[in-house]
């Protein structure tokens, strides 16, 4: 208890008593001082919320094609109409389809004379909520027409809805990948650190070796090796495994170095002398002492997995349709011609940046909080 020893009065008159606080409470207090980390945390919470309720919040179904609005630009929400009149209920302008007299291609024009007012809780395309309940209720929608906040792609699919679904998939890839890497890193690093000697040396050489291989070429080669006829779900699992396969090394190093330091401590010796088994010493006495560092490492690994998945899918070697992830959506924006005509296809990329930023901030905050006794 260094500087935290003085009790500070808090709002509401309650006293903060550092000398009584648990380790996790101290960490939380320290974490809260990192404002960017708190903001990052709320952004992440929002993203998770949006992706969990993707079906309800997105006004369309992800694979519905809107033939009246193909390659359509994002539709702005207005409160003031063309004459400058204010409307309590926000609206979007109607879109009508015209045909180019020369090329005969259909294109849509904004019709400022007609308004499509926005309403909450409208009936639209049906979907299965969490794969269980069939419903057609959506959070919002345009009455009498359609609304595409992020525009549509070349097939007329709503980019906003698809981004929500993609967020769900991409975050899940990150979560599963990091979890696998976490478990692998804890076990392998634990073995290396606890037993030391020959085994430790071997494992450390292996880690060094894996780290000397450039990651992206390795991932590319591995994902190119996946059979083409695999279902998208199998590919999803395989890609997650591939990303976890190289992600565990960092964690294993942390676990090892902490274990090496801690196993020499008196409390570890005491536990061993009282007859605790190896497993009990590791899991009951040593692990809780450096759990926070592992969580920090996992948080830092998360955005790396997100970026890796996005890059792989973007190159066409990662996830594939009908699975949707950020990378899969960005795959449509691969060449300069499609970006020049439809810059809104890059919007999922902005979501990627937002998510990775948020994770980095949270990671920073956690790194500071991991050792609550330092200044």
């Amino acid at each position, binding site marked *: 208890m260094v500087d935290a020893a003085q009790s500070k009065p808090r709002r509401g008159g309650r006293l903060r008593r550092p000398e009584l606080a648990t380790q996790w409470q101290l960490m939380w207090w320290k974490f809260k001082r990192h404002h960017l980390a708190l903001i990052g945390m709320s952004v992440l919470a929002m993203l998770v919320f949006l992706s969990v309720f993707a079906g309800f919040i997105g006004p369309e179904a992800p694979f519905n094609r809107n033939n009246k609005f193909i390659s359509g630009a994002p539709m702005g929400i207005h409160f003031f109409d063309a004459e400058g009149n204010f409307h309590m209920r926000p609206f979007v302008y109607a879109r009508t389809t015209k045909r180019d007299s020369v090329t005969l291609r259909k294109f849509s024009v904004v019709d400022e004379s007609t308004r499509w007012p926005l309403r909450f809780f409208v009936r639209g395309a049906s979907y299965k909520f969490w794969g269980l309940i069939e419903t057609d209720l959506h959070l919002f929608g345009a009455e009498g027409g359609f609304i595409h906040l992020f525009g549509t792609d070349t097939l007329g699919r709503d980019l906003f809805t698809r981004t929500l679904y993609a967020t769900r998939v991409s975050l899940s890839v990150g979560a599963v990948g990091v979890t696998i890497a976490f478990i692998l890193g804890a076990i392998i690093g634990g073995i290396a650190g606890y037993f030391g000697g020959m085994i430790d040396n071997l494992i450390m050489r292996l880690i060094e*070796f894996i*780290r*000397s*291989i*450039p*990651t*992206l*070429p*390795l991932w*590319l*080669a*591995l994902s*190119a*090796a*996946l*059979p083409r006829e695999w279902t998208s779900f199998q590919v999803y699992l395989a890609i997650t495994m591939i990303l976890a396969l190289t992600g565990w090394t960092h964690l294993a190093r942390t676990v090892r170095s902490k274990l090496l330091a801690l196993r020499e401590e008196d409390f570890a010796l005491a536990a061993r002398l009282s007859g605790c088994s190896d497993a009990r010493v590791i899991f009951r006495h040593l692990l809780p002492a450096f759990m926070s560092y592992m969580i920090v490492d996992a948080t830092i690994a998360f*955005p790396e997995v997100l*970026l890796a998945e*996005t*890059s792989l899918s*973007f*190159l066409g*070697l990662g996830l594939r349709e009908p699975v949707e992830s950020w990378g899969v959506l*960005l795959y449509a*924006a*691969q060449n*300069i011609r499609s*970006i*020049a005509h439809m*810059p809104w296809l*890059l919007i999922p*990329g902005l979501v*990627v*940046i937002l998510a*990775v*930023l948020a994770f*980095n*901030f949270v990671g920073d905050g956690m790194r500071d909080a991991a050792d609550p006794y330092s200044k």
Partner: protein
Amino acid sequence: MLRFIVHRLIYMVVTLAAVSVVAFVLIQLPPGDYADSYANKRQQAGAPITVQELDEMRIRLGLNRPWYVQYGSWVSGMVLRGDMGYSWEWRRPVVDVIAERLPLTLILAFSTLFFMYAVALPIGIYSAVRQYSFSDHAFSAVGYVGLATPNFLLALILMYLGQKWFGQSVGGLFSLEFQDAPWSWARVKDLAGHLWVPIIVLGSAGTAYLIRTMRAAVLDELNQMYVMAARAGGLSPLHLLFKYPVRMALNPILATLGWRLTYVISGAPIVGVVMSLPDTGPLFLHALLNQDMYLAGAMILVYCALTIIGTFVSDLLLVALDPRIRMEGQT
């Protein structure tokens, strides 16, 4: 010192050997082989290949032999004759195909590395000295965004902006008239004019990371007692800064030079593909997709070799820079 170098050299050779096995296993992983993918292509073109032809092709290419025999002949050819196999897709020796494009990858990688350090070190030092100033915060903000933006997305955004504002494509490395021209001074200048976009794309995240590391390292040193002592002794601030804290802070930065190189090499293929550079990136992706086994394997090997050599060089640099490591084992 000599022992250290020999030790690292042996370690490097062993790692290279291990990498060659990994590379070979990786390219053996995909189900089917080049013959299958060739047959598939012929089928789609409407001229299917007979089973007998397929078998003959396998025998001709040596695909019917067990994998360790194939590996053995691959490695021995490489070590003894500098022969990395034959690219079936390009119908030329792999060495020639790679040699054509590798220089550009190397130029790109090393200019990026240079760019990263040239930009990051001064900014890192400045941010540390002027901690919490407006420019410190501004650099931090830019750095955070740089870290969070995937390379290819930055490339796409730059390409879009280039198209929109300058009406020209910023992809590629040469102007039209220099595309196939022989090397000349004018061509080099043309290359330099195009190279900065991929350099920024490839280097942004690494630069951001380096700035953060450098800033933290200098800050650590600035708070040391010896700095205060030197200041009290009347050393001029600038002289002091560069003689001690910066000098000390450089060690951890240079120690990770190898990793930075790994990072740049690792990111190069995707930037090459997105910006359609005539370097090894598109070559590698294409080879992987077409199961052009020896070309893909050789590319993996080249990428790995580059990073392993880079790590070796950064180890040597560290020894040269840090007397504590140099003296180790001598006392």
